[in-house]
């Protein structure tokens, strides 16, 4: 059975176009103190343009909008490097427990021991899973974790007396890596890898002005950097540090630990590896693991245990300081801890094994029809290219056609080292049946491209809107609704 089909889809205006003066969807208790008056010159007019709707209007509006989306709960979402695994429902339930959801961040620590105990336990578990000496839970997302990590590296070099000037970044890196290095005042030196980075390449690029190498392992081609130990040695020999982007940790749980490979700092994406939902773009959480010598530089605050109780430590003289208000994206930390507690050691390893099995299964089924530019053994994801797609169809066309078949497309045109890249990450929560249906769709589209390319080029045809004019959007940006 083909998953994609058309069905009744309801139109819906912008919330502002619904507005009818006099309606409201909110009720307050009657004011039980005397109404006070703020001095006139500080008071605004009404908020111009704000909508006025009843509760029913609002519920219908957002319910309709939701039906125009595709989520992991809708179907297969093989977005490479994003680890779109199933988001367990019980995690949502526990994050909403009033004792977690309604605890104020400024609650005195002795009245927040449950929250602090959870954070401490998660710090310890992530350190064990990754092989690092300590973990901070402060960063709000992966790129925020990168910033924390690179600031710590810089602070460490400064403490040695010389900040250094450059950061090496392989061509398979995430786009956030160079932006983060620049934010820490470093010049970016690209290193070309040809798919796998060699220690020889790194050694040739290393000198005593290089502060760090930023690496992703497994890399964005889904390949394990087999020379990782030698690469780290080459960086360390010249006094540099190794930063690892942990986006692809789902390939390693219980198998190997970045901390044991010689890596000095790594961020986790709890919204990838540890099953917390992506929320249509966030919120996530980006804890960071570090080796012993970077512990003094961890951002504030850090959860510590003293005897039987827990507290937030902010008085650490060498800390890189604050990166946000309060202590971290706690609601996300609760979900991640629920995931780890549900799986346990064996479950985590099993998740990785099945994620890698799934990626290799897709690879085996599509190889031969789709061009595979790098043929080493894949781990959790596999990257094809559009080279062999016929009928003048390209990666973008394939992606749009997959939508008609009922799938969220893979990541496309990334990594940049593969022309027309199609980056597929199935994760462990998909069954063989789902993978088979998806692979059948991929093969059918390759056939369509050869025999009826217009079907591919005109896709998607079953969605409520067809391909959108991004050029017009960028030339004359309309970024808000205007009255009239």
């Amino acid at each position, binding site marked *: 059975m083909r998953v994609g089909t058309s069905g009744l889809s309801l139109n819906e205006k912008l919330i502002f176009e619904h507005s009818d003066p006099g309606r409201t969807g909110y009720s*307050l208790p009657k004011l039980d103190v005397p109404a006070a008056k703020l001095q006139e010159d500080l008071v605004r007019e009404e908020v111009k343009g704000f909508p006025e709707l009843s509760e029913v209007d609002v519920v219908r509006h957002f319910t309709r909008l939701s039906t125009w989306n595709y989520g992991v709960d*809708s179907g297969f979402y093989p977005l490479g490097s994003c680890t779109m695994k199933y988001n367990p429902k019980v995690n949502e339930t526990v994050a909403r427990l009033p004792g977690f959801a309604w605890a*104020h961040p400024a609650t005195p620590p002795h009245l927040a021991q*449950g929250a602090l105990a959870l954070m401490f336990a998660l710090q310890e578990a992530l350190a064990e899973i990754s092989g690092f000496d300590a973990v901070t839970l402060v960063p709000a997302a992966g790129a925020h974790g990168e910033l924390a990590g690179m600031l710590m590296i810089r602070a460490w070099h400064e403490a040695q007396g010389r900040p250094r000037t450059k950061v090496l970044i392989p061509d398979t890196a995430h786009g956030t890596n160079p932006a983060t290095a620049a934010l820490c005042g470093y010049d970016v030196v690209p290193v070309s890898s040809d798919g796998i980075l060699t220690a020889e390449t790194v050694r040739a690029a290393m000198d005593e002005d290089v502060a760090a190498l930023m690496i992703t392992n497994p890399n964005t081609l889904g390949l394990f950097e087999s020379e990782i130990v030698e690469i780290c040695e080459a960086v360390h020999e010249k006094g540099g540090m190794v930063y690892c982007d942990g986006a692809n940790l789902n390939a390693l749980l219980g198998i190997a630990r970045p901390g044991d490979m010689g890596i000095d700092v790594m961020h986790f994406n709890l919204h990838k590896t540890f099953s917390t*939902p992506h929320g249509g773009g966030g919120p996530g959480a980006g804890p960071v693991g570090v080796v012993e010598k970077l512990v003094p530089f961890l951002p504030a605050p850090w959860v510590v245990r003293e005897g039987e109780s827990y507290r937030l430590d902010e008085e650490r003289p060498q800390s890189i300081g604050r990166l946000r208000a309060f202590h971290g994206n706690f609601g996300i930390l609760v979900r991640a801890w629920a995931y780890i507690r549900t799986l346990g050691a064996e479950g985590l390893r099993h998740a990785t094994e*099945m994620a890698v099995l799934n990626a290799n299964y897709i690879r085996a089924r599509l190889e031969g029809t789709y061009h595979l530019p790098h043929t080493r053994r894949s*781990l959790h994801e596999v990257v094809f290219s559009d080279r062999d797609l016929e009928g003048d169809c390209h990666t973008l066309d394939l992606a749009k056609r997959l939508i008609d078949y009922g799938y969220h497309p893979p990541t496309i045109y990334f990594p940049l080292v593969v022309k027309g890249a199609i980056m597929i990450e199935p994760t462990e929560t998909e069954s063989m049946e789902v993978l088979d249906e998806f692979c059948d769709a991929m093969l059918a589209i390759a056939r369509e491209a050869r025999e009826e390319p217009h079907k591919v080029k005109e896709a998607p045809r079953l969605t409520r809107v067809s391909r959108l004019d991004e050029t017009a959007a960028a030339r004359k940006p309309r970024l808000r609704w205007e009255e009239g």
Partner: protein
Amino acid sequence: MRYIPHTEEDVRQMLETIGVGSVEELFETIPEKVRLGRSLEVPRPLSESELLLDFSRLAALNATPATYSSFLGGGAYNHFIPAVVDHLISRSEFYTAYTPYQPEISQGTLQAIFEYQTLICQLTGMDVANASMYDGASACAEGVLMAVRATRRRRILLSRALHPEYRGTVVSYCRYLNLDIVEVPVAADGRTDIEALGSLLDGESAALVVGYPNYFGIVEDLASLAQRVHGTGALLVAAVQEPVALGLLKSPGELGADIVVGEGQSFGIPPAFGGPYLGFFAARQKDVRSMPGRLVGETVDREGRRGFVLTLSTREQHIRREKATSNICSNEGLCALMATIFLSLLGKKGIRELAEQNFSKAAYARQKIGAVKGFSLPFGAPCFNEFVVESAEPVGEVLRRLENDGILGGIPLGKDYPEMGNRFLVCVTEQNARQEIDALAASLGEGGAM
């Protein structure tokens, strides 16, 4: 494992298709010397019912407004959240989706963000708003970096009355960018000292950052500050830590702010021990290309139907790499949706009424506490729903005494302001009934009698 569907037979068939004998073989590219070779040492797995019990026990150890009367604010607020918000964001088409990179199947998220951007513009009085940042503090740091880009100047003035953790975040973000960060003192009335500002501003100053309301709950005189700052070609960045205030106060845009950042937690997002929250970020039309973060724009499809897409993405890290306007990638999308739903429910009248209730309750509490022997209100400038209280008795003892009466009375200021060791910050919202406020004043009074 209930999240993993593979049967033994599935695994066997899949291995056969791949052409390997075991799952173990799939990991052959990982050198033996970095293999873990043992089980991870994490706690034993729990069934769903055990998990619920375990987490409920932990959650019960934390104080909440249901177990204590709470007057805690300081950048995170106890506001009512209508049931509708959680029901709607629990539609999994919203919360299990990724960033809307494929617009044809993400119109729900995209239209909601477009609505969110509009609401933030209306509230702040600005032209353009982005799709969200991590929180108020990091949005504030990004505002500073944008001011540096826009003015090509290197000096940043931070009001000492700006949230201390926002100041700290700005300092960390700017640490290695060769910027000069200067603190502007607080005047006797609790506002940023405009006279002192005059002597600190110069032709090298990129921006002044002030809270609106500031950390002490006080309404800054933004118009006068804007005039001063613009006189030297610098920008005014207003950081709104309590956005409910914007239902009542003149908008920062109207008063001359160039960049408005803030914390959206008050709009339907629970305090959750510090996150996830919602950083909002708004600016003037002319500066749109130097804004950080994602933007959603309106366009049409091939048939001319209205639709929405991520746009102006050449500013972002995945395209401009080290020259990007920020390194932010994941943002706080679902929290932005919560704020959008919350504000849609409130509407024009609701936001004003909510703001007025907060203001009136705080005014009542000020009057009650000001009349208690041994306590005074050191700052004279108008405030919104928070205010500073000075105590003759040591603050630690006062707050402990209140705690014994079931009250979380406020945040001691001594940690962040050593010169204010005898002061604490009290926040009153629409959630605090008059009896709670009276009980707070009564409990404070008991100490004075001792």
